[in-house]
């Protein structure tokens, strides 16, 4: 029961000021204006961009993260690969903000190490249309904490794939692909999808990295909320910030519910 009290005081209560605040205007009176204000094209645009980036990085993160995890866990590699990758992913999953942004600027920015290297062999990234400071660029940077998160969460699920099942499938005459199609993927899919949804939520809520890399030029929901909470910008108010945060909360709740449902499904198989 102390758990619930703790949550109550330190999470629910402060978060509810968010919910309440979104229904208040500057003078504290109840109003729907903030919620309606969400239909402002700038705000909708911010939601659209946030959703897009989150989708790209969730999909990319899920796929490549899964491949990495599977390779380390079941790929027949020496065990040091697995343990060092797990610890590395622990650190990398939280490497964000200015240091991460700078690391990428220093690598693939206009005068980055990689950019210059490619220049010297005749491949000019920026002339080809690539820019680190675009939605694509930001997505590439986000992957730095998305891949590790996927690896960390999906590894127990991969662990749960019993070796016996693989052997049984082979004994019954199935090939490598059959095993995957009929046995492994159906079992893993709920976990993979569930974690992908978590990745989606993670990307949606990212703030520091986007701010550091693009100075607020790319319009994301979290950046806009930050603008509002820091002061009056463009005629909006703190209430608008809260309303946006509420919108975020709704989206995230949907994500989490989806994740939990899918987790339940996969649990049946891995028990």
């Amino acid at each position, binding site marked *: 029961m102390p758990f619930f009290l703790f949550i109550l005081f330190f999470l629910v209560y402060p978060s509810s000021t968010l919910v309440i605040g979104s229904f208040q205007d500057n003078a504290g009176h109840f109003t729907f204006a903030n919620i309606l204000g969400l239909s402002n094209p700038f705000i909708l645009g911010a939601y659209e961009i946030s959703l897009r980036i989150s989708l790209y990085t969730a999909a990319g993160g899920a796929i490549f993260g899964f491949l990495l995890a599977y390779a380390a866990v079941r790929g027949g590699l020496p065990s040091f690969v697995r343990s060092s990758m797990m610890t590395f992913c622990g650190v990398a999953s939280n490497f964000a903000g200015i240091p991460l942004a700078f690391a990428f*600027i220093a690598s693939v920015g206009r005068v980055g190490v990689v950019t210059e290297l490619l220049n010297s062999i005749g491949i000019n990234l920026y002339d080809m249309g690539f820019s680190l400071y675009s939605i694509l660029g930001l997505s590439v940077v986000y992957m730095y904490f998305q891949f590790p998160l996927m690896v960390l969460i999906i590894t127990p699920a991969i662990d749960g794939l019993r070796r016996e099942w693989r052997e049984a499938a082979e004994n019954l005459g199935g090939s490598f692909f059959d095993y995957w199609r009929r046995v492994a993927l159906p079992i893993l899919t709920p976990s993979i999808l569930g974690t992908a949804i978590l990745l989606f939520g993670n990307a949606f809520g990212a703030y520091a990295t986007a701010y550091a890399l693009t100075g607020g030029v790319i319009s994301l929901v979290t950046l806009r909320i930050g603008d509002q909470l*820091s002061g009056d910008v463009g005629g909006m108010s703190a209430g608008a910030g809260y309303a946006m945060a509420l919108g975020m909360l709704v989206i995230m709740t949907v994500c989490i519910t989806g994740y939990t449902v899918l987790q339940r499904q996969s649990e049946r198989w891995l028990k």
Partner: protein
Amino acid sequence: MSAKKMVFVLMAMAMILAACAPAATAVAPMVETSAPMVETVVVPATAGPAPTANPMDTLAAACKAEGTITLIADPRDWADYGTIMDTFGSRYGVSINDLNPNGSSADELAAIKANEGNKGPQAPDVVDVGYSFGPQGVSGNLFAPYKVQTWDTIPLKDPNGYWTEEYAGVMTFEVNTKVVKDVPTSWADLLKPEYKGMVALAGDPKGSNQAIMAVWASALANGGSLDNAQPGLDFFAKLNKEGNFVPVIGHLAEVAQGATPILLRWDYNAVGDEVSAAGNPPITVVVPSDGTIEGPYVAALSAYGPHPNCGKLWLEFLFSDEGQMDYLRGFAHPARFADLVSRNLVTSDVLSMLPSASSYSVAVIPTLAQIAAQSTTITSGWDSAVGVTVH
């Protein structure tokens, strides 16, 4: 089942409690200035019989009793705040609590607001904000009035004492000459294709005074005026379209690395960076020849600060001859510059690090009304001019 119900009940309680709470935060500002109204003691030394106690000593003692002062968003390397803070701290025996040195002017006002009921170290006592944020603070009821002893020699101030200009800077180009071979000398130059991917701001124009002023300065060179900053937005839109603008928020590290080799900065920050880099990389500071803006920064006393006496003492120090000279040594133009010069306090070695005096002649300084109007234009127009909102 009962456990589940209990959880829901608890959560409902939390929501109800929270609904009541925000009303409580709209508490009237604390009447914490129980200290004698020192601001009225701006007694010129020549007035009648000398007062028995020097008002500054009284203030210093009261401040010592408070023990600490909370500043906000004053990086040590910004206009030599480091020296100012150290001198103040050791002279008056108080500790300096420097909050959020990276903060913007907008963050400073937000911090006052968020900590209205909080007497702890998160609540700032004084702020140093961009010119346009002065009136914003007044209308938000965030400041307490205070007129320092040297009030009369300060040209730019709020008539009621709510805020006072401490120093001003001029918008310049901070250029990494290792990366940029051909140094730009004007805003028009910046549009040249050779500067592709090189020009950056030092903040987000939606909240950083330095960035807002940079945009406005570019307006002056492109058909705009102190009453019309829109050409500045157009200029940056063009800069972005040509690919010369880099959206990264630039710091010395990015200038050195080459990601933002042309950074739009106040002269005191740019020269400060030049000195700090000490040739690695080599930096030149250029005042754009086709127009630039002078941006004052103002100090204000928080109405909710936990250490009001230290706040007032700090302001007295900033506006004293010594404080103003410290700003000058930090490469900023102190508000009382004319006064200091007329009393022969300014020596040439201090002025030598700054760009030549003649180049400053193009700088113009806006009025309050102009700032209020144009800041809004810039902060609300930025996203549509340069931002990536919808594809």
